[in-house]
């Protein structure tokens, strides 16, 4: 199914901004062999290359944990900030004000997001900060060697910790409830879908949450675990086939149009995602339906993947601030320091 769109007039290995795939790579990974996170990093590299994104226009963010290390493993030419445990959202919120033409890609984990970072996660949703927020979700704490995370399913047994007796947090449900404007779930073992969702998320203006089930090969890859390759492969229920259409390629749509089955979502940058419904017939623009499909999946032990919810008419945080066109971090003293006569006026006000 993976057929990158042909880029007429450019050499095969160079995209329209003149870069090769290598220009999107990062340092060699130091995560475990077979870690789902590495596969996600590869898809980020591929998606950004295929979307002709200049790495200089992207800021990478992360918190703390295995997942949060991964921004080192892609896009070396982008600025990055590996922040504190659970605090990626606040760092990203502030940083993106520096130059509002930049787009954020954040990588967090289930511990970083659903435990220590739950508060900041929910608040970045409601602020609609313009970034892709990836949760590499494996249900386990890797760096501290295998404790349950808040997304681990009830009843899961881990070597040193016995049975998990708490109910899991559903990151997508939390995101939808917190008024996120783009919520999707995927599975690291389905790279094509990961990539298409990444592209759609990147094209979205506002917060785009991608909860990617990313098995931990070292601490949580038992075939009975929700967060394992085997389980994911068996239980994945894609809501639709996703095709991402880059801007200026609308002509391609025609042949795929089929009444009833096809749902199109236009993104802010002019791109379009085409969702070819499978048996679920899910409308991702309907918030109540989004919650319903998540609930249904949980009840039936499915891994519902695809675009769960999207709302494209809400301004991003930066847009609501009515900022000057020049990036704020390029402003100089003449823009920033009021004139001396303004101080005279202020002093006159101080009775």
């Amino acid at each position, binding site marked *: 199914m993976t057929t990158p769109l042909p880029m007429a007039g450019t050499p095969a290995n160079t995209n329209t901004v003149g870069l090769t795939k290598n220009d999107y790579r990062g340092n060699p990974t130091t995560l475990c062999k077979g870690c789902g996170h590495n596969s996600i990093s590869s898809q980020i590299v591929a998606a950004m290359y295929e979307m002709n994104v*200049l*790495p*200089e*226009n992207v*800021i*990478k963010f992360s918190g703390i944990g295995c997942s949060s290390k991964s*921004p*080192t493993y892609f896009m*070396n*030419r*982008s*600025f*990055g*900030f*590996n*922040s*504190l445990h659970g*605090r990626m*959202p*606040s*760092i*990203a*919120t*502030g*940083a*993106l*004000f*520096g*130059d509002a*033409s*930049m787009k954020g890609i954040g990588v967090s984990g289930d511990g970083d997001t659903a435990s220590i970072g739950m*508060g*900041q996660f929910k*608040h970045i949703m409601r602020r609609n900060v313009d970034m892709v927020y990836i949760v590499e979700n494996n249900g386990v704490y890797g760096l501290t060697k295998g404790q349950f995370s808040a997304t681990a399913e009830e009843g899961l047994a881990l070597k040193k910790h016995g049975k998990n007796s708490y109910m899991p947090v559903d990151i997508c449900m939390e995101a939808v409830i917190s008024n996120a404007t783009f919520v999707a779930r995927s599975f690291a073992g389905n790279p094509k879908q990961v990539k298409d969702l990444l592209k759609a998320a990147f094209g979205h203006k506002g917060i785009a949450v991608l909860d990617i089930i990313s098995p931990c090969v070292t601490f949580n890859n038992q075939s009975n675990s929700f967060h394992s390759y085997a389980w994911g492969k068996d239980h994945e229920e894609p809501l639709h086939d996703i095709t991402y259409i880059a801007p200026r390629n609308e002509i391609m749509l025609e042949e795929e149009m089929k009444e009833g089955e096809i749902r199109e979502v236009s993104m802010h940058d002019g791109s379009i995602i085409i969702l070819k419904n499978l048996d679920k017939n899910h409308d991702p623009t309907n918030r109540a339906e989004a919650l319903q499909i998540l609930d249904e999946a949980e009840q039936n032990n499915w891994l519902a993947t695809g675009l769960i919810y999207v709302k494209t008419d809400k301004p991003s945080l930066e847009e609501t*601030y*009515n*900022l*000057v*066109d020049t*990036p*704020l*971090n*390029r*402003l100089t*003293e003449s*823009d*920033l*320091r*009021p004139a*001396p006569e*303004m*101080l005279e006026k*202020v*002093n006159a006000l*101080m*009775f």
Partner: protein
Amino acid sequence: MNKVVNDFSIIVGTKNGSGSSTANNTILRAIFKMGIPVSGKNLFPSNIQGLPTWYTIRVSKDGYTGRRETNDIVIAMNPDSFSRDLASVAPGGAFFYADDIKQPITRTDIAVYPMPVKQIIRDDPNVPTDYRDLVGNMVYVGVLAQMVGIDIEKIEAALDFHFKGKQKPISMNMGAINAGAEWAKENLEKKDAFGLKEMDKTDGLIMADGNTAGALGSIFGGAQFVAWYPITPATSLAESMNDYFPTLRKREDGKHTYAVVQAEDELAAIGMAIGAGWSGLRSMTSTSGPGLSLMTEFAGLAYFAEVPIVVWDVQRVGPSTGLPTRTSQGDLTFVNFIGHGDTHSIILLPGDVYECFEFGWKSFDIAERIQTPVFVLSDLDMGMNQWMSKPFAYPDTPMDRGKIVWEKDIEELKGTWGRYLDRDGDGIAYRTVPGNRNPMSAYFTRGTGHNENARYSEEADVFVNNMDRLVRKHETARKYVPAPVLHKTRGATVGIIGFGSTESAIIEAMHKLDNDHDLKADFLRVRALPFTKEVTKFIEKYDQIFVVEMNRDGQMNQILTIEYPQYATKFKSVAFGDGMPASAKWVREGILAKYDAGNAKGKTKAKSTAGKSKKAATVKNSPAKVKKTPAKKTSSRNK
């Protein structure tokens, strides 16, 4: 009876939330407009409505603004604090009270004046029923005006300011004030000694609170990003920025050069501020102790990742929630070492509202120059109360954006650029910010160990080299932080070190010690950490140095002892933290209790007669009699 002119205190006891602040501010501003030095302090509970609250006004012809511990005139409007208020009046003082409070008057050594507040308001046809309680406060303003001689025209000017010229509330309140004054004129006989007489000592001065001053200073410093979370007593700082940004940074296209975000908590507030500072904005947050506790982890990250931000800490009493509406200087050691591991902070210590403005803009220059958090420690007394001040001074230096490099600079550096590479030997590396489109400009910022090129490293020597560079950087900072202010006394034999809002109380105590005890002291008001060379010189000069501060443990004293172990035995801690603003009395008594007469340089008599009066605010520039020459001119503000 001897008249006491322009030198007394007024304390108004009311219920919190009863709307007395307009009345009290009116008294304060009217006296200020009469040219008489005056200060006001709100002693309020952590409560929205109902608990007792006091407002203290000090009238001081000599210009002292420290808290006065004697209550000369007490106005009792609250039955719940009536007996306490009555007991607090100094012998020979005056006691005004609302006569609907039917409680026994047990004092005969004071002048007592009942005021028919409710009756007067009921008789006023211009006051709607639901405004009676609010406007009722104005009756005591009128009575007091009549009895001590506050100029009614000045009161009107104060109201005009308060209500921004809106005629309806002005005339309604003036009606109550006039009625109160009329009634007092007809019915009260002056039995106390206190009176006001116009002076010209406030000419050219302004009146402001430190939080507004800090906000304005920050805006004139080019603030671009503010993230904050409400907390007493810092809230009004961020709110003032919201108030003034639209006017002061107005542009023709109506677009904004700044952003203010109210965060979900202090963790997020400082996180956002660090994100913005990292991406090249003049970025700040404001908070108080409990908020700062939450910000600690992020402060460590900003220190280690070298991100410029400004953090205002308007101090209140800790530990924990402590006394949330009382003033303190109790965060000093905490901030000095904030964060785990080896850290040291740059701290600015404004002494008054004028410096709150000045450090508002200067803090950004220092933060961006040194690439580190700069903490500005104000306190509740300075931040929330109204103070007389010289008009704020326009920044006298251009913005210093520090060692920031853009696309062209990176090209010129030809691959020799490294985010944490100390090219100049001053510990400060060159930094790029996101949005720099040169492919060589990006780096990965982290709180983990890193080498000169910002790459992850756990190598022992790489780590130590980086930590040593941070020490070097901190040394460089000494050249950029504000030098202390020296107040001299002719023939001083001992030194006093203080900081922040205690200045006026210390100066008053210093004059008292000289006049009444013949103990002559020079007073150095420290304005920043790390200490500058002037502090070292001052310490070298005296055998006894009293370190005065508003906390229990003597935190400045602790830091001085660490920084100057060779002089540790010189320092005598005069520390007291009960939540009340410093008074000259406790400063003086604290110093006398620790003073060792046998160990003072020069001759010092134990005690002398009282009575001589020295002027505050204008310390004489006198050549010292003792051998040592003064380190600095009197009252000079060093850049």
